[in-house]
């Protein structure tokens, strides 16, 4: 097992290096002179040169990359051009709320997705199935930013149950997490339904029923348990969807997380923050995929680790 984890971790390294090169080159890919863009249209030549020096763009490119990597390893991500604060300090206050939001979304999306999927499967082609699948296909099709605004209008403005935005305690997480989780919930529901329908046809389910097991026990203990492995994997692999979606949802709810920080930084052309935020998102995504991959092999005895 440890060998497998070590091998998968080593395999991550080249991808991480390429990603670090891409995020490093980000500022160099910008059409035109990045120093001029950051300094603004009215900046003098001296101001532009100062910005160039501040961003380290006056050094040879290889030296810039070596410095960038050295700083990365020591956790030095540069200084924000708009706030003047170290980028790492800005991340410290923004990362945890985003992480909590993502996990809460994933938690309820998995729970609701499983319930809808199971109910639909055991009532195949009956109204609970139609209702469940209409909900699921709608959840995939609904734009997150629109759902968020509708939820704010209903639950915050009209009913006054939750704050309209910002971060002030647990209640601030409810609406954003419902919005963010809707798409994943739908995918899990659809996948659980098809996986359960397949499992319910299996011989061991027929045997269970034949030996007089209660239907509840057949569904929950045998069929669902068997479907759970692949469902959990699908849920894990959709984590990237949440990371991308969080940018939009955090903007709708003025939620002070990493996604909102990224969008604000783009608006102000704060390149050091943009570069580091993209790198962090990519790293988080790769790490979660690795964890899911390992979990899948742990949960599923059919998978041979050495193969």
């Amino acid at each position: 097992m440890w060998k497998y984890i070590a091998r998968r971790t080593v395999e991550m390294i080249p991808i991480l290096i390429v990603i670090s090169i891409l995020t490093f080159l980000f500022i160099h890919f910008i059409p035109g002179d990045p120093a001029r863009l950051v300094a603004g249209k009215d900046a003098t030549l001296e101001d532009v040169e100062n910005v160039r020096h501040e961003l380290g763009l006056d050094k040879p490119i290889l030296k810039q990359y070596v410095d960038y990597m050295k700083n990365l390893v020591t956790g030095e991500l540069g200084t924000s051009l708009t706030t003047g604060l170290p980028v790492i300090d800005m991340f410290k206050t923004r990362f945890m709320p985003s992480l909590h939001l993502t996990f809460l979304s994933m938690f309820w999306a998995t729970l609701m997705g499983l319930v809808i999927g199971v109910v639909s499967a055991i009532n195949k082609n009956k109204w609970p199935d139609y209702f469940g699948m209409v909900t699921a296909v709608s959840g995939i099709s609904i734009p997150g930013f629109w759902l968020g605004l509708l939820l704010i209008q209903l639950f915050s403005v009209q009913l006054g149950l939750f704050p309209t935005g910002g971060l002030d305690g647990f209640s601030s997480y409810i609406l954003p997490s419902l919005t963010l989780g809707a798409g994943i919930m739908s995918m899990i529901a659809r996948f659980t339904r098809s996986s359960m329908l397949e499992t319910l046809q299996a011989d061991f389910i027929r045997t269970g029923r034949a030996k007089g097991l209660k239907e509840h026990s057949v569904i929950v203990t045998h069929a669902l348990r068997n479907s759970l492995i692949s469902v959990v994997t699908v849920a894990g692999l959709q984590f990237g969807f949440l990371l991308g979606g969080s940018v939009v949802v955090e903007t709708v709810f003025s939620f002070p997380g990493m996604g909102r920080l990224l969008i604000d930084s783009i608006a102000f052309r704060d390149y050091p923050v943009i570069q580091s935020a993209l790198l962090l998102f990519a790293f988080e995504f790769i790490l979660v995929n690795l964890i899911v991959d390992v979990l899948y092999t742990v949960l599923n005895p059919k998978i041979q680790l050495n193969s």
Partner: protein
Amino acid sequence: MTSPTTMQNSQVQNTQKKYSPLKEFWKSFKKQKAALVASIFIVLLIVVAFIGPYIAPYDPFEPNYDALLEGPSASHLAGTDEYGRDIFSRLIVGAKISLMVSFSAVFLGLILGTILGLISGYFGGWIDKIIMRSCDVLFSFPDLLLAIAIVALLGPGINNVIIAVMIFSVPSFARLVRGATLNAKENVYVEAAQSMGASHVRVLWKHIFPETISELIIFVTMRIGTAILAASGLSFLGLGASPEMPEWGVMLSSGRDYLGTSSHVVIMPGIAIFLTVLAFNLIGDGLRDVLDPKIKNN
């Protein structure tokens, strides 16, 4: 006098003539009621997108300061926005922008991804490794984040949104086509074509590419829905179409300040995006049920 053998041959020919894959497909597809309704909706939407400027009841750009934020009524079916512009007319004209952005992004991604996937799967070796590792790198960024990064780099604008959505579509198409190519190249007829001296391009185009078409059709349909969501999301974030354009995401974004007092400004463009994406997803589901051999056999 006609010999029995000749009669049999003509019967076989008649049967062969009668068989049409398109007819078979239509026979199965029309049983998928939801997908059929969704297809009719999309066809109507495409027609509306083309003739939009001629049928829109009002000028979608003309402000009317006597009719600010009016709710839906007989004269303004979807109400008016903060400048008094008719929302229904803006939705009609905006259909062209939303469809154009998503169609062009997905089709450009399809062309590039298919070429890369075919080359990767057919030739294998180091070409395959380079293409697939490059895809892995692109897959390391969640779709929407990759699009945001590209637009952040190139600057806001509808053309850059098309490029961004295209780039995040390429690796998915490449991987799908590579898989199908790996399967298809094991077929005997491919080996036969190769042994008869057919060029690589001919083998890929005439013998392998047709094998990937059914999977591609399903995926393209699903992908158009995703592209509409991504493009309108980028516009909502201020990274897409310019604020005066009647693009659905922009309309939704500019209306959010009036959500408390005139919710129709947000609800109407949202419904347009939702129904269009829903329709593409339903068509995708229907096509999968008809074309996917695994599901068909079940």
